[in-house]
């Protein structure tokens, strides 16, 4: 078939993409270079989408389309996070015009590669379970009573954390998180990571979520919990939603200290 790109506008600019590819979870990664036309407003996801239609490397070899994840393309679903020029970030909001060329794309580190730029973030969701990142309801039915009030100020603080889309960027940037840090208690006791910690902060602030505050704090006082944080501050620097992850971690530090005292001296 003819090599025709989706662009409607003639003679557009091009950019060089260097992509780290991997055919499967256990195969060796390799690099391929592509030269892609760039339309105005193009981003990494739109380039990868265009590339699917005609996946030919710089040296003219036709290769398999690059596997990658994307869905909303407006930085709210969290699917498309990858390493772009060495930084973890959502690919959809990485505008080509703002990136240094050639653009290097790699899968999000710390998570097992599925194929090419797709990774398996199951660890993130397992850690959300570990810290009990939910409010305990009696059931999903109406109890004919509303939840207690929340002041606008509290709302503003909580809303920062509730916008976490579990993209995994903070986990990828964290020097303490990753499969290589499986502790003596097994991988499930490895560092829980910044995103789940911030959810503990959020759930503990809810007027009824507070009821299970001690349980959540105990979860992050255990092995692989809060004390594994090395305070590198990478997480807060890469978060695409500017979530104050280190503030949450600081607050949780105080809370866990208090909890430790309560555990020692309080009623059991």
């Amino acid at each position: 078939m003819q090599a025709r790109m989706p662009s409607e506008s003639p003679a557009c600019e091009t950019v060089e993409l260097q992509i780290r590819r991997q055919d499967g979870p256990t195969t060796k990664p390799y690099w391929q270079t592509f030269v892609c036309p760039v339309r105005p407003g193009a981003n990494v996801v739109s380039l990868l989408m265009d590339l699917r239609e005609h996946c030919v490397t710089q040296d003219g070899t036709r290769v398999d389309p690059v596997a990658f994840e994307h869905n909303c393309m407006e930085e709210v679903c969290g699917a498309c996070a990858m390493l772009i020029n060495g930084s973890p970030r959502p690919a959809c909001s990485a505008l080509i015009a703002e990136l240094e060329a050639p653009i290097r794309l790699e899968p999000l580190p710390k998570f097992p590669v599925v194929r090419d730029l797709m990774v398996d973030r199951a660890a993130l969701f397992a850690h959300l379970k570990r810290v009990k990142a939910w409010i305990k309801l009696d059931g999903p039915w109406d109890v004919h009573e509303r939840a207690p009030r929340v002041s606008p100020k509290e709302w503003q603080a909580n809303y920062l954390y509730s916008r976490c889309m579990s993209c995994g960027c903070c986990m990828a940037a964290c020097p303490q998180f990753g499969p290589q840090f499986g502790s003596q208690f097994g991988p499930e006791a490895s560092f829980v990571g910044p995103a789940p910690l911030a959810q503990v902060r959020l759930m503990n602030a809810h007027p009824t979520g507070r009821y299970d505050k001690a349980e959540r704090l105990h979860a992050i006082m255990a092995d692989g919990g809060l004390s594994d944080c090395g305070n590198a501050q990478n997480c807060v620097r890469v978060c695409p939603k500017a979530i104050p992850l280190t503030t949450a971690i600081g607050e949780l530090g105080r809370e866990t200290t208090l909890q430790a005292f309560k555990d020692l001296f309080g009623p059991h």
Partner: protein
Amino acid sequence: MSGGQKGGQVIVIGGGLGGLWATLAIAAAGHRVTLFSLFEVMRSHSACAQGGINAVLDGKGQHDSVQQHIVDTIKGGSYLANQPPIQSMCEDAPGLIRTFERMGVTFSRTPEGLLDQRLFGGVKNKRTCFAGASTGQQLLYGVDQQVRRLETEGQVAKQEWWEFLSIVRDDDGVCRGIVAMDLRSLEVRAFRADAVVLATGGLGQIYAPKTTCSTNSTGAAASRVYQQGARFANAEFFQFHPTAMLGADKTRLMTEAARGEGGRVWVPKDPADRRAPLRIPEAERFYFLEDWYPSYGNTVPRDIASRAIWKVTRELGLGIGGGDRVYLDLTHLERGFVSTRLGAILSIYRKFAGQDPLTTPMEIFPAAHYAMGGLWVDYEKDPATGGMRRGSPRNHATSIAGLYACGECDYAYHGANRLGANSLLSASYSGRVAGEAVASYLSGLERGADAAPAASFDAETARQAEINQRLMRSSGDQNPFRLHRELGELMTTKVGVIRDNAGLDGAIADLSALEQRFERLDLGESSTWANQSLAHARQVLDMVRLAQVMAASARARDECRGAHFKPAFDIAMPADSFPGEPAFEAYRERWKANNAEWLKTTLAEPGPDGPQIHFEPVDLGLLAPEQPRDYR
């Protein structure tokens, strides 16, 4: 409830608001759920809903009432939706909001710490609860967290990275399970279930790239069960959201709340005016929505706003610089207020357009957004209340026994046009109702899926595996991604905001030609691991087949109603004439005569020569169509 030793086994397909609510309701009744999702649950398109969710709380001093919510919804949909489901949805909305609040959803607050509410389109009262401008994301995460808890208790199991391919029916035609494909290993496998709930969302990708929808909103799952005999209803009714960003890859949504909070839509009176927008004096701006609809102004319903923008740009040639764009202006509003209440869209616009809506008016144009039509679902009317009978197994049942549908993939609540902030409501509410209906269905089920013959599962699995093998062997010249692009162009041009029968005939012929080209497919890869081209090719073919249903349904309806607009059959409301005046009353009679002919639900079923279209009456028991929609 743990271990799930008692109770039935249900499959829910889709992890958006509808699917997760159905899961919660089914689990609450003591049954086990296997939840299928194309990707990690929590990444569904529900996350993209911005502005809010409607529920009458009457906390803004406007004497709002559930009755008014019902009337607004019925009229917003041009009377096309059955009224019992609308009544029940509006009645249950406040309870749903309370439940979301208990889940920890970060709803925006009044100074007193109560739920704040704002104005949305097609209504006069502040009725929309919201969480900044990321309401869908917040609601989705609320139910996602609850389902995650059920997962740890063993009552819900997730099958992420699995794509639904088809249902399996027993010899009596009852749905007894599904066939799905592992998107990594490409394994095709059958799963038994006592009931199946489809919560697979919308189909905006049929109009790609000019759509606000996520790339997974393909409609393929709904198309697949349609092809297996499930009825599809009102397929011609598809909403174009008036205010989407311009974009070559996607047209990103700028919430209707922007106008609800005071945003104004305008164009320069002189399309050749090249001045920066804020340098154009008030007197040289045309606020056409305020001018044409002084009563509702910028918050007219979406079908009306989209057509007004169409008229300004395409008919009057008044688009900015003569093009397909108008201004959505927030610059006159207090910045702190806008940042608190609309922060999420400000950030999207800044990131993707490189400009700040606080200091520069946004440039927007209508884009494909929401399917009012969808899988036909039943309901049982409760004669005592006029609403749906609670817990009836008929509620949200498709035309195939044992198969339920909820959320955007059903057709039930929005008639010919959906009101803003009613979709998060209908997705949540219908999910819960479908879940409750499934529980009732299971209690009346004489034998479960275990008793169904293995042959039907084996045969369907073999059929689906064979489709994959044929695609993997393909050696033609037609690229699936390119076919998708052509589908989007075709539908946007010919089955879009404005329709005519010649164009629709053309669309039907073009779609048929497009379908033929799948015979000459070139998949572009033969990898047997995480082959995304294979999954996409299958989706695009099913999208083409669903597009045929949309085009055929649009062709069959010779009138203007809500989002379906055929100018050749327009009964225009007389300008400057109002109820009680002779010109308006004459119009009312023509409008009623048209209703007598066309106020009916479109039904599509697969036939040998394409979709077979027929109609069924609408239940108008609550509000007879006496008042034409009038937002002037």
